[in-house]
């Protein structure tokens, strides 16, 4: 029955598309600047359906993630109209909104409130809303939790040894102190035993992303937010003592991570996991679940789990689709945003293994089946993360300087991670850099 319904839908879609194609002689041109890679490849098919339904021609411009922000800002400042739809990282939203680079979509979504309501309130607060307006829709979320080797936590030999050493039961960490203990416990040399078997290479307690990429700040957001602090306090300044504290804890963890921690980004950590080198991650992007779960194929007896980060706080982020204020066709661009971020496409995106942003998709029982575990197995955890973080929003996302701060902060943080400077010096340098960027205390929107 399901099959015949699906076939009928496809036929209907094709026939309507075909009919439109005959009528559509002068399609409206829009251009979408976005991130090269899976996120965009998966969207190519959805772009086609939008074109067919709306008599539009969408040109997708793939840009490497490291250059996307720069390129978009230049086009926005020049008001070139080169991009109608732009893709923004969470920390960039306020800057684009404040400077008039993107158009508010509050009015547009007035009769489509259901779509906005479908975005988890936590994700909505972080990625969609700014100063009471709606600025687009996220189409992909890389919100963080943690990945652990559940088989290690469940092993009776390891449990007994852990209890003997630390005096409490080995289980998924709920505090950062426990996380540290587990990282230390599982750090072993080649030849040592793990789950009763000798290791043929060194094994590490944790994989860290301390390389020269804007990810060490994503990791550190988890303990910083977890301790009730933020990258910017209410006065718009960096809380130096708090940053120093989490950075010192992070430095202590570096001992239990592969040395490559200082050069890798998220894919490097995933490679370490799949290469049976690490027991768990720090705060980590849950969208990487399909990658992480491959560890089970590579490492004998491995069982992966996606869990919430200790203290139930971690980086929440998503790629926001927004409409450029210099767009020549803003109406069509807004329709496109609603199309890609809307429930139909998000459902299809999820079926392809994408990390959807809509609650209706994330809670859809069809993705909770054992067959879907390897592609969508992180959805339940993602919902828990959003639920645990309900009502939370970082000041980093409420300042129009958020993007610049975000793009700068890995430098002092990584300097400390590499031992070039101390945690205190890094925290002070970060505070000075932020003050320089904002020209004083950073303005924080309510």
């Amino acid at each position, binding site marked *: 029955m399901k099959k015949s319904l699906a076939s009928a839908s496809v036929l209907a879609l094709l026939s309507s598309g075909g009919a439109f194609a005959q009528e559509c002689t002068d399609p409206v041109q829009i251009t979408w600047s976005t991130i090269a890679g899976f996120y965009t490849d998966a969207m190519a098919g959805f772009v086609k359906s939008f074109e067919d339904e709306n008599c539009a021609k969408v040109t997708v411009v793939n840009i490497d993630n490291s250059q996307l922000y720069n390129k978009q800002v230049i086009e926005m400042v020049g008001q070139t109209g080169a991009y109608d739809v732009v893709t923004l990282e969470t920390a960039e939203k306020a800057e684009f909104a404040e400077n008039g680079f993107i158009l508010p979509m509050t009015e547009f979504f007035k009769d489509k409130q259901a779509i906005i309501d479908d975005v988890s309130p936590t994700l909505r607060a972080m990625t969609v809303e700014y100063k009471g307006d709606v600025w687009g829709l996220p189409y992909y979320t890389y919100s963080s939790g943690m990945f652990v080797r559940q088989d290690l936590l469940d092993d009776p030999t390891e449990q007994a040894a852990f209890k003997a050493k630390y005096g409490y039961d080995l289980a998924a960490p709920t505090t950062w102190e426990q996380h540290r203990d587990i990282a230390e416990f599982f750090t072993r040399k080649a030849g040592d035993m793990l789950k009763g078997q000798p290791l043929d290479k060194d094994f590490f307690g944790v994989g860290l992303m301390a390389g020269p990429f804007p990810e060490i700040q994503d990791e550190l957001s988890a303990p910083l937010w977890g301790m009730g602090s933020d990258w910017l306090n209410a006065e718009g300044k960096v809380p130096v003592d708090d940053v120093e504290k989490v950075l010192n804890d992070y430095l202590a963890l570096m001992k239990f991570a592969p040395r490559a*921690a200082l050069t890798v980004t998220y894919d490097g950590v995933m490679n*370490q996991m799949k290469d049976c080198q690490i027991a768990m991650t720090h705060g980590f992007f849950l969208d990487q679940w399909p990658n992480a779960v491959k560890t089970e194929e590579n490492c004998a007896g491995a069982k992966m789990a996606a869990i919430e980060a200790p203290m139930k706080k971690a980086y929440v982020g998503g790629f926001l689709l927004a409409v450029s204020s210099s767009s020549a066709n803003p109406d069509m661009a807004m329709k496109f945003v609603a199309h890609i971020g809307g429930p139909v496409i998000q459902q299809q995106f999820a079926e392809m293994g994408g990390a959807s942003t809509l609650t209706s998709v994330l809670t859809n029982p069809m993705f909770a089946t054992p067959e879907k575990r390897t592609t969508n197995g992180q959805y339940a955890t993602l919902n828990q993360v959003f639920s645990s973080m309900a009502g939370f929003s970082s000041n980093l996302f409420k300042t129009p300087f958020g993007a*610049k701060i975000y793009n700068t902060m890995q430098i002092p943080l990584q300097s400390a991670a*590499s031992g070039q*400077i101390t945690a205190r010096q890094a925290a002070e340098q970060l505070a000075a850099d932020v003050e320089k960027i904002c020209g004083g205390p950073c303005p924080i929107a309510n």
Partner: protein
Amino acid sequence: MSSTPASSGPAAMPKTKGAGLSDRWFSVLLIAPAMLITLIFAILPLAQALDVTFRMGDLSRGKIGDYVGLENYRVVFADSAFWQAGWVTLKFTVVAVGLQMILGVGIAFLLHGATFAKGLTRSLLILPLATSAAVTGLFWRYLYDTQFGVMNWVLGSLGLPEPNWLGDYTIALWSVVLFDIWQWTPFVALIALAGLQALPKEPFEAAELDGASRWRILTTLTFPLLKPVLFLVLVLRTIDCVRLYDAVAVLTRGGPGTATETMTFYLYRTGLKLFRMDYASTMAVFFLYVMLVAAVFALTPLLKQFTDRAKEA
């Protein structure tokens, strides 16, 4: 007499050029396209950059702002990261260029004296130069990889320490230097080899007949005759190293921390990550000024030598 070449030449020239142009205007016409391109793509942007150095220029706020006098220069000169980047650039340039010159000239001498597989070796030397640093840098990043890289695999197999090539702040810069040496030493070698092959034979034959030692020939004949070529390579490599960006961007992104952040990379970060075009332009103008001064000092003897030779000819 009117039909002699001396008098008929100049008189006939305007006819062939058409429109009765004088030699002076004809030469102006010839260089005009090049000058126009230079004006549009170099002089005008430079003038605009100079203008921006005296203004508030936070591009992400939408536009270039009001004039602020010398404030940007004050900020840049007081910026420790700027001087740190300058120091990194200087260290990189001195070591990389120095080693490239020594190794390159050494290879050139070996090749010059080689009797076997000379052509093949010369062709192989071109390979590192044939691909951009952005691509080869990516290969090297994998070679340097602490866990999966070939370098550490080889070192580990030999029981030697396995460095964290790009992650250890004490050696990351030297890892970039090593990459640059791999890529650009062949350039020095090939140019030096061409210079060696172009040297006149007579003075060397005379020196041999006079019983001069190899060392004497090398110091009194080979190097002095090769000096203009080597000097040119030195200047070219220095300029290239001073504006190093691509290798850093691909290998380390300036990290760990700021350990490999060169002047150009810092300029890029300031201009295109923070969008402070005012600071970036100020750095660029200062950078250009330093380079111009250095170039004038470095190139004057060379230009003089070329001019003298032209006069002699």
